[in-house]
């Protein structure tokens, strides 16, 4: 990709990096908390955008990975493992396993059947965790403190935690952009555009799609581990189908396929919710029509509207 088409992404990340300094003029601790949560959900939306935009795999169960990552932190801390990197590795491993098992079943279906299959597995995981009393079940599990980083409790500072989330987001963005430009990414794209032609050329869709599920799931699980740290609390509600729906909405709002669009979509959706809640407690009456308008008029989402040339290769 040329430098030009990366401009919006660069500006976006620059803005995010500068945000804590702007937040000094407001209620800093609260804004940093809000900001960290936004970055975490943006990370999850980013991974979903990769899945949907590059793989044409619309997952309605992506929040399951957030839950897997969050509960990985819980289980790790119960076992005495407090280092964030170790916990993230466990989260990634669990996510990969889940993606492999469910992908084997789901990827046999296409279209809406695939969507519903992902929903089914997301629901199964949700109900499983609701029934686990040892982890608090529906009430959730409170973590005694945030994870340690390289042995020290560095994450207690909201400032440090915000930048950690931003670093994770930036890293994921760069990694996914590289993957999209790699041979694997282009094969995936070809399969998305025309599976029959891709098969004719000798590319089997299943392994590529499964790999895409694994990558997206792993990244979302890292987001889940960060989410557990952000609220210092984990509940099955993290993986309800409504959450999966919200992630999908953020991704679509931002414009599928541009990757940075998903980040933007998450930011706008959450900022709007927060800003509107200051005015009224009827936020959904306003957000609902907004989504409808964006769906009808914004063919490529916000990314497509703001920076058409840089909004990615999704048709």
């Amino acid at each position: 990709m040329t430098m030009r088409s990366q401009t919006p992404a660069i500006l976006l990340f620059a803005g995010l990096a500068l945000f804590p300094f702007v937040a000094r003029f407001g209620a800093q601790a609260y804004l940093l908390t809000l900001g960290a949560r936004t970055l975490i959900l943006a990370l999850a939306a980013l991974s979903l955008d990769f899945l949907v935009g590059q793989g044409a795999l619309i997952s309605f169960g992506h929040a399951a990975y957030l839950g897997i990552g969050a509960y990985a932190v819980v289980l790790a801390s119960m076992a005495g493992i407090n280092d964030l990197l170790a916990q993230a590795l466990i989260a990634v491993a669990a996510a990969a396993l889940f993606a492999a098992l469910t992908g084997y079943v789901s990827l046999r279906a296409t279209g809406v059947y695939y969507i519903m299959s992902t929903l089914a597995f997301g629901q199964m995981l949700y109900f499983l965790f609701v029934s686990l009393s040892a982890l608090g079940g529906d009430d959730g599990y409170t973590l005694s403190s945030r994870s340690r980083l390289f042995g020290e409790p560095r994450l207690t500072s909201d400032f440090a935690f915000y930048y950690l989330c931003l670093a994770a987001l930036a890293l994921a963005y760069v990694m996914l952009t590289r993957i999209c430009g790699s041979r694997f990414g282009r094969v995936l794209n070809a399969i998305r555009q025309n599976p029959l032609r891709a098969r004719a050329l000798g590319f089997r869709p299943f392994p590529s799609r499964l790999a895409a599920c694994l990558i997206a799931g792993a990244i979302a699980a890292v987001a889940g581990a960060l989410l557990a740290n952000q609220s210092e609390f984990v509940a099955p509600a993290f993986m309800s189908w409504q959450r999966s729906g919200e992630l999908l909405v953020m991704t679509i709002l931002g414009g599928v396929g541009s990757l940075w669009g998903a980040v933007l979509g998450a930011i706008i959706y959450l900022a709007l919710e927060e800003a509107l809640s200051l005015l009224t407690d009827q936020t959904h009456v306003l957000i609902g029509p907004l989504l409808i308008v964006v769906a009808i008029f914004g063919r490529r989402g916000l990314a497509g509207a703001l920076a058409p040339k840089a909004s990615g290769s999704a048709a």
Partner: protein
Amino acid sequence: MHDEVAAPRPVSLALLAVQTLNGLQLGILLFLIAAGLTLTFGVMNFVNLAHGVQYMVGAYLAAMFASLTGGFWSALALTLPTALAFGLALEFLVFRWLYDRDHLSQILATFGVILFMNQGVKTIWGAAPLSVPMPDALSGSVALMPGLLFPVYRLALIAVGLATGLALYLVINHTRVGMLIRAGATNAAMVSALGVDIRRLFMLVFGFGAMLAGFAGAMVAPILSVEPGMGDNLLILAFVVIVIGGIGSIRGAFLAALMVGLIDTLGRAFGAQMLRVALAPAAANQTGRALAPMLIYILMAAVLFHRPSGLFPVTR
């Protein structure tokens, strides 16, 4: 403190029969709700997440009209055209702009409709659950088992569900309109090229689907609570049903609904007991409880594994 688990109750034939009837009844209920969805989805290839909202609106309209007129039948009679009007309004404002678009835009827009309507009904009718009175003519009960009455209303629901299924089947397969619908489901462009006003057809199907959902909501209101968000979980169930049945197939939706109803009910009724064959009682109970809500999803995954397009897919 009691930690011991009671001895398993004897499974009499009567109990088995009753639970099977319960399962079938639940299935018919699901069919009423899913029928409209499979129609709109099958014909227009439109992901309508707002179907649950249409069901909810039907229930709320029934509650409102019932409190105004005092009776169930008049409420039902008023609800049907209003639900149809609501469906057409939604079609006009939102859906007709999205027929040509990809599923993602449809998901986004209908999600917005859900958010708006869930808050909307709360604003109009308040957050507290509402109720609809049972019609007097149907408020009796039949003794199924000593001590257990089965409300006549539920028998009426079963009858209505079966009648609706039959009517839909006849219309779809044996009338001209039905033929156009089937043709439109297979190849909308071709139908349009043959001179049929495809927009009008879509509007008709959509309006009818909305009315069917509203009808289901109104029919179900006397036995279930009417509250904001009541359609959300049912929406998921409806999608499960139509996916198992094969999108676009009324016959598939009917069978799938019965399957889902039976498995869900029998699983809840006898699941823990069946597990006791393999596990210790306490573990069987725990596992049974955890598995119960998952059963229908396991069913769906199993069906999709063997038949990735559902049981009776409509070939395009």
